[in-house]
């Protein structure tokens, strides 16, 4: 049948490279899961049966659904490229995508069977990702990218802890907070790679050959250390019962300072305001602000912890994922990143969404309105992105290249 043939072609195109299915579902689920959450908050009788309650479902879907999908899409594409190893076989991409999908479906089921399904699917998903990435990262002669390996392993640990808590009746939320910390560290690691190309390309484009951008390891390592320490101390405080809040608070402030410190690599003049440079820089700024608010809240400032946590999630994670979706998600499909006005607008909207969500912590009276406003912007940005990315990623490559290959050298600049 005609439609069956078209399905085959579409599926073939989707599985051409790891980022294709994962970036698409990340954008789609980022918008959809948040829309469900906002609707439920506004009183719609949705998903009242999900295990652990709606709040847990929302946190879980945004961190381990949306966040992990984008992370896996990035890693499945970047790890073979960084390490010069073989591309990830199509079967693996298909299996991992299916596991991710099963975990989402399981989350919508109620009761123990649903919880078990999510636990199995999610654990297998991350273990599978680790199985794909580990030999490649370890096989790299200089092992320059092992940070991704440790990050994935830590994430698997968080997933195990989370599901153990859900199934065993413990407190699952701290494990999601820890997963946020791991994602923050991974963002720093990934952005250091991405920014080296983006910023230096922008410098070159400006004809500023004398300047050179280097993401210096010492500063990055300090930031990663602070983030990791904060994550560990917070998790230990929540799971072991140690009175850790003020200690974690100081460390969160240290993480904020260490993230601001990363800006030193970036202050190279007006290139900071270049199209793809500023959004990446803003990711660090928002992450720093998020840790600043978290630290202040932990040290007794009258502010809910969730304000800082959401600046990390909406600002740090949301913005970085959006930028990666727009850079890697196009280059590896053979087209240049967009040059139209939509991307700067989307970046501005995401930053606004972050500010609104943080403001909800400062003005509890306005919180419901601010939640909806912030969430609405988020849903809009990712819905539009999905609509624009779908035609590109669900069809065969138009440039005659295969797999994850980047833009051909002689390709014309895209509009």
């Amino acid at each position, binding site marked *: 049948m005609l439609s069956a043939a078209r399905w085959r072609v579409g599926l073939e195109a989707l599985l051409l490279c790891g980022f294709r299915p994962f970036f698409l579902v990340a954008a789609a689920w980022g918008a959809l899961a948040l829309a469900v959450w906002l609707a439920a908050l506004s009183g719609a009788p949705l998903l009242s049966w999900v295990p652990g309650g709606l709040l847990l479902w929302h946190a879980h879907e945004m961190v381990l659904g949306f966040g992990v999908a984008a992370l896996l899409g990035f890693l499945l594409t970047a790890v073979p490229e960084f390490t010069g190893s073989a591309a990830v076989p199509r079967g693996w991409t298909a299996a991992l995508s299916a596991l991710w999908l099963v975990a989402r479906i399981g989350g919508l089921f109620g009761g123990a069977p649903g919880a078990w399904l999510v636990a199995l699917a999610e654990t297998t998903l991350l273990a599978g990702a680790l199985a794909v990435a580990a030999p490649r990262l370890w096989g790299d002669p200089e092992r320059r990218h092992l940070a991704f390996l440790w990050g994935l392993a830590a994430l698997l640990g968080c997933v195990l802890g989370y599901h153990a808590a859900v199934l065993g009746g413990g407190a699952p939320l701290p494990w999601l907070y820890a997963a946020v910390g791991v994602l923050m560290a991974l963002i720093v690691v990934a952005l250091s790679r991405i920014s080296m190309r983006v910023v230096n390309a922008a410098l070159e484009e400006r004809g500023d050959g004398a300047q050179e951008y280097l993401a210096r390891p010492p*500063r990055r390592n*300090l930031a990663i250390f*602070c983030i990791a*320490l904060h994550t560990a*101390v917070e998790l230990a405080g929540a799971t072991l019962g140690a*009175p850790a809040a*003020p*200690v*974690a*608070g*100081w*460390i969160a*402030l*240290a*993480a904020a*300072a*260490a993230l*601001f*410190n990363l*800006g*030193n690599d970036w*202050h190279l003049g007006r290139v900071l305001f270049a199209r793809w440079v500023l959004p990446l820089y803003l990711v660090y700024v928002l992450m720093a602000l998020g840790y600043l608010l978290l630290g202040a809240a932990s*040290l*007794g400032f009258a502010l809910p912890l969730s304000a800082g946590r959401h600046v990390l999630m909406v600002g740090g994670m949301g913005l970085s994922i959006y930028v990666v979706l727009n850079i890697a998600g196009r280059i590896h499909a053979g087209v240049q990143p967009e040059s139209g006005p939509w991307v700067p607008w989307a970046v501005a909207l995401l930053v606004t969404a972050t500010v609104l969500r943080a403001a909800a912590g400062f003005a509890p009276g306005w919180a419901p309105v601010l939640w909806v406003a912030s969430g609405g912007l988020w849903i809009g940005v990712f819905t539009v992105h999905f609509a624009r990315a779908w035609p590109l990623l669900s069809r065969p490559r138009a440039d005659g290249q295969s797999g994850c290959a980047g833009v051909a050298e002689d390709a014309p600049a895209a509009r």
Partner: protein
Amino acid sequence: MNAAVRWLAGLPAYLWSGWGAVASLLLCLALWEWLAGFYGELILPDPRAALSTLAGLLAGGGAWSELGITARRALAGFVLALAAGSALGLAAGLSMTAAMMSRPVVTVLIGTPPIAWLVLALLWFGAGDGTPVFTVFVAAFPVIFVGAMQGARTVDGQLAELAAAYRLPARMRLTDVYLPHVLSYLFPAWITALGISWKVVVMAELLATSDGVGAALAVTRSHLDTAATLAWILAVVGTLLAVEYLLLEPLKRAVERWRSTT
């Protein structure tokens, strides 16, 4: 003029580069907070308690005058050591004989514990400004002396030849060849000596005077007020950090721009 503009232009980048230091100081506060959780209020109050006590002291105004008194004594001793140490050290560096003679003397000066000088100073000067100023001078002098002597001893003979071959007048040899070199030794010595002065003056005041930060520390100790003790320590350390990173380090960078690799 030119240098001032350059300094101003470099200031934001310099201040921003301080975030790394801020991060590591905050990690220290986290460690302190963690230890405070073990030991309790009397032995180790947490950093927030110490900081709020300090804020109270500063808001009350008393802390400023004590800090001013301490700073006056430290600076007096430091300036004396700076003048004497630089001049004598340079003189010693110019003469091999003087350098040979002074080396054991300097070793003795460095090796004598400041507390020993303090006891002598108490006998000689009694309880007044003289005791802390003298102790600071004796502690800071040898450090500056050694720096100046090293600077004078290590002037590059090849550059001296260059100065002769290009017929540099005496004044130019001093300003263009010798001084920049000597300064690169003197400056770090001055900074180290300033740190020593600031530490020694507090110790001297603790034992010898009735005012200043040291004396205030003695009072808080006798009241078993650990939070106030820590607050005073924070004030002393904070002042030193501020002077070092806001004043001396930028100055050093401006003077030694030719050295930096970035």
